[in-house]
């Protein structure tokens, strides 16, 4: 398959072209070049992924256009899945970015909650955006193609750097600087862990190809150490609770095509790394490994969506929901590992297939949602949902596309989010096959948590869409909103189409994932394992079947029938527009509407234990009589207790040590000389007796 190599070369060339082009040329031309490079590259990536998935044969990529020494590249079906993700979101982001990086229509800057950036400030430099878009895509492609530790590490750090710079393109925003610091810091900590685990794994030589590593035999202790390091390293990258702190800071402040890429693709690199290292290179491990992943995933899923529910900053809400989805994927992987450790290959492969599919789907709808949020922010100048509303009238396209994304993330059939969650459910339901009841009991609990998460997601996105796009505009900015330019809509439409296609066509996609499973060394004995069995137009899990296509057809058919039926039944009276009734209220104002905070209030009370909310209600009454209320102030906040529990103490300790050390440099020359002499004497003693 030589064409794959040429495609790979084309990818790198296109990205390089785009990066340079965007950097050197100004204005529209620059934006066009950057977008063109990114688009071409991403399409090539997409083709490469499809090619390899279809062919299913891994192939090494000898010296790419990359002159880097020590770099070793190879593409197999596992990489191909993630190449699909990169290519899909990358091309959408490229198209979208062309419009987005154009100067936005002027709007009064409105403060967003969560200290977020308010609207079109001095606009981020489009050249930087174009260049960084290409660089980020290139580094991620490199990451996925890496075939030895060195390449892996190189791509990892390069990717972090590119992302960080992307976050910083709106450097006028102090929040962005802070976010970038956190992001790069956490990611570098992950990098350190990664170096450690790769050293352990490859026995010190970072340049040997993974194929050799795959054969390596390690002691149980070392394997456990590697696994824990992997959880840390990839947890930081994927935004796993409690390593997620950087995520809700970084994703909102980045330019929206960057946020889309970060949530949709960059996080997936954590998933990819985990699968590559733990499943592929180490062939899984004891059951407790899976338990750890399952637990961490469950925590992230619930925690993420609960915090998303309370957010009224649209992009932060989406960021938290990404944490949730990542959690779901980790749960699937964890379940898969558990099944693997009991030799239950079929459920395991269902679980991994579900994980991969959900990674793909999440990329599609989360990219779409972030782009939608970006369109809203660009034309209204705020991300604060309390100041939005009624946009479905002014930005119909954006609203419609965002609705598709919201329905997909809420796992509503027949969209893609549902398809993958269905697979994951199927896998978890197989839990009763686990011989050990104590372990088997994990699965129903996991099912419960997963179900809770999906229910809360539905609630959360009813709020996200309803408050943002429906009802009456809550601020003049929202009233004056205008539809996004064509390129942005096109980018979103691409992903929306992907959401629908992936939702209807699991029977096309899922079997192709078998290649990825085989690439991870999961080859079912005898006949191909159930998730890969396609029923006519449908898929079968281990215990059930479904067919999104027929479902969709049925739904449409019913709607049509009902419509006709109504006509026949003579119910064709024309619609009359009136003021909303609202139990006989005279006229309504935006202030009467439910706000995003109000919407989330019931759940905030139900989960008070997790939120640790802090409310304070101050009522200013008239001095004459307390029955004349002059004003009421109500502050509700959720205390970031994970932050307080983990990070503050660590930083405090660090500062204390630093203080001690600083005291050493006290300024007294005699003290310094004394250090010198003491060092000398100690060393002399050492030389006499330790020799």
């Amino acid at each position, binding site marked *: 398959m030589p064409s794959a190599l040429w495609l790979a070369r084309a990818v790198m060339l296109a990205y390089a072209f785009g990066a340079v082009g965007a950097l050197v040329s100004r204005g529209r031309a620059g934006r066009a070049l950057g977008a063109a490079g990114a688009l071409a590259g991403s399409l090539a990536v997409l083709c490469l992924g499809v090619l390899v998935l279809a062919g299913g044969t891994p192939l090494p990529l000898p010296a790419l256009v990359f002159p880097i020494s020590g770099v070793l590249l190879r593409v197999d079906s596992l990489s191909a899945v993630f190449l699909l993700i990169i290519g899909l979101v990358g091309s959408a982001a490229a198209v979208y970015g062309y419009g987005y990086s154009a100067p936005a229509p002027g709007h009064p800057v409105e403060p967003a909650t969560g200290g977020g950036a308010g609207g079109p400030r001095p606009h981020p430099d489009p050249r930087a955006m174009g260049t960084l878009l290409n660089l980020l895509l290139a580094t991620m492609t490199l990451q996925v193609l890496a075939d030895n530790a060195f390449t892996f590490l190189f791509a990892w750090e390069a990717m972090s750097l590119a992302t960080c710079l992307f976050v*910083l393109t709106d450097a006028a925003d102090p929040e962005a600087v802070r976010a970038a*610091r956190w992001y790069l810091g956490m990611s570098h900590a992950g990098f*350190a862990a990664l170096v450690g685990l790769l*050293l352990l794994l490859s026995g010190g030589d970072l340049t040997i190809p993974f194929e050799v590593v795959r054969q390596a035999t390690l002691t149980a202790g070392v394997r456990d150490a590697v696994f824990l390091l992997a959880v840390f390293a990839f947890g930081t990258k994927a935004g796993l609770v409690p390593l997620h702190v950087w995520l809700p800071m970084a994703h909102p402040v980045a330019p929206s095509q960057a946020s889309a890429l970060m949530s949709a693709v960059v996080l997936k690199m954590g998933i990819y790394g985990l699968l590559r290292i733990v499943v592929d290179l180490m062939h899984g491990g004891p059951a407790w490994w899976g338990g750890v992943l399952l637990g961490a995933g469950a925590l992230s899923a619930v925690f993420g969506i609960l915090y998303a529910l309370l957010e009224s900053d649209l992009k932060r809400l989406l960021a938290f929901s990404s944490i949730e989805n990542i959690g779901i994927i980790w749960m699937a992987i964890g379940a898969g590992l558990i099944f693997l450790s009991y030799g239950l290959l079929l459920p395991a492969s269902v679980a991994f297939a579900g994980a991969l599919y959900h990674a793909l789907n999440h990329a599609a709808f989360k990219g779409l949602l972030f782009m939608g949020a970006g369109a809203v922010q660009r034309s209204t100048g705020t991300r604060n949902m309390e100041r939005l509303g009624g946009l479905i009238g002014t930005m119909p396209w954006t609203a419609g596309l965002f609705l598709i994304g919201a329905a997909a993330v809420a796992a509503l059939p027949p969209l893609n989010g549902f398809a993958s969650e269905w697979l994951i459910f199927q896998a978890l339901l197989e839990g009763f096959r686990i011989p050990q009841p104590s372990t088997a009991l994990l699965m129903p609990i996991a099912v419960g948590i997963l179900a809770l998460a999906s229910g809360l997601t539905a609630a959360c996105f009813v709020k996200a869409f309803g408050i943002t796009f429906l009802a009456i505009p809550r601020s003049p900015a929202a009233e004056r909103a205008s539809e996004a330019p064509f390129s942005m809509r096109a980018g979103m439409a691409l992903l929306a189409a992907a959401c629908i296609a992936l939702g209807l066509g699991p029977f096309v996609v899922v079997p192709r994932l078998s290649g990825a499973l085989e690439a991870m060394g999961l080859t079912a004995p005898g006949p191909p394992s159930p998730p890969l069995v396609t029923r006519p137009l449908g898929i079968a899990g281990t215990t059930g079947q479904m067919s999104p296509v027929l479902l969709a057809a049925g739904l449409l058919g019913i709607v049509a029938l009902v419509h006709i039926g109504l006509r026949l039944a003579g119910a064709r009276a024309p619609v009359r527009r009136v003021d909303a009734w609202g139990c006989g209220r005279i006229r309504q104002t935006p202030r009467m509407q439910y706000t995003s905070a109000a919407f989330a209030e019931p759940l905030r009370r139900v989960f008070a234990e997790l939120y640790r909310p802090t409310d304070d209600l101050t009522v200013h009454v008239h001095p004459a009589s307390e029955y004349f209320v002059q004003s009421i102030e109500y502050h509700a906040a959720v205390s970031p207790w994970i932050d307080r529990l983990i990070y503050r103490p660590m930083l405090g300790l660090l500062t204390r040590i630093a203080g001690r050390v600083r005291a050493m*440099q006290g300024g007294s020359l005699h003290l310094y*000389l004394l250090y010198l002499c003491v060092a000398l004497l100690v060393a002399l003693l*050492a030389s006499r007796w330790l020799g």
Partner: protein
Amino acid sequence: MIFLWLLSPPLAAALAGLALPVRPARLVNVVLALVPAGAAVVLWQRALAGVPTVWPAGAFLRADALSTILALCIAFVGALVAWFGPGAGREDGYQPAQIRRFTALSNVFTFTMLGAVVVNNVGVMWVAIEATTIVSALLIPLVMSKASVEASWKYIVICSVGIALAFVGTVLAYFDFVNLAGPLGGALNWTVLLAAAPRLHADVIRLAFVFLLIGYGTKAGLSPMHTWLPDAHAEAPAPLSAMMSGTLLAVALYAIARWKMVVDAAGQEAFANGLLLTIGLLTVAIATFSLVLQRSFKRMLAYSSIEHTGLTCLGLALGPLGIFAALLHLVNHSVAKSTAFVLAGRVQHRYHTTEFTRVTGLLATMPQTAAAFAAGLVALLGLPPFGLFVSELALFRAGFATGHPWATGVVLTLVVIAFVSILGHLAGMLYGPPSEGVSHGEPDRWMLLPVLIPVAILLVLGLSLPSSLSGLLARGVEVFGR
């Protein structure tokens, strides 16, 4: 005869600096500064062939691969400083007298360092290194102030004491040697010493190495003898800091490395490695934690130098892999750090302070400088695509391969801490609202063009290690007798 080309130009430039008026002197200086670089490249070619260049027959001067690596760094930094030295920027308000003094002394400084790395005789090397102390100490208070005088006084006292101890070590080694072979000529030459080393007394050579390590370690800024370094680097004029940070530390390390060879040859490798590891770890740790609560960016750069010296020192103790990594790291660091310091100087002259709190919005006030400075620091943070990424990885790998996983782990953690704190300070400098009363724009943008050279070098070293360089480093490792 190549040594003439290597050593004489600095002296000539020094004289020119004294004799000629400022502008032509600057021109001459820049031109002459390029000559040693050329000479070093020639040495490089010869070293690749594996034959040390020797002159005269008595082998008074001798340049093998190791010396060549150092010579390259010194020549490079010398040229860089010749370009960016006082009188370069429009806004560094130096008097002609000061400029003259700097030109003269900095060139002598370069000369002494070059001498230190190419002489074959340990005694003379010691003399040269002591000379570097004296010369640089004279340069630190270029702008007379309480702070600069204090810094230089500390510098000269601590370093003189340290260096004196190094001489004790030298004498002890020599004494042991004389006991064996009698006082014959050239007894203090590497070649001779190394040849005789296996027969030396273990205890004595260990004793000697302790004195040498503490002594030269003082100069190299190893903890706990590093105390002079932040003060000196912070108070010295930026170009001098660039030279001290970029090469002086390296030269001191070179001395330690040389003596380590002797000790290894004397069969005391384990002891030497242990000592180096301990002191290296201590150095990295102290430097890292000093970075956390830093107030001034020049001190930050100084501590980062200490950290990198510590890393290099660790590398020396980690077998062939480690030594290779250490040498690579040394080269990377001297390029990156000298650049960073030179640019820091420009920032200082614009803001008239080195306090983080009063240096903000750099990207707005002086974009080109800021970009270059950021690139330099990103390189120093060990991020790809810059050279230090590769060398640090190589270091960790060596540490792991030679069976020090825990030490490697500790160093990794420390490096992360240093990373985060430097990053924080850097972000604070680059972004945010520009400090009031600071003029915007860069009148002498063209001045900055040469900065592209070190950045390019770092990029190349990060993306692909040219075979010519890796060959040189490999030869350098061979010098260690492996």
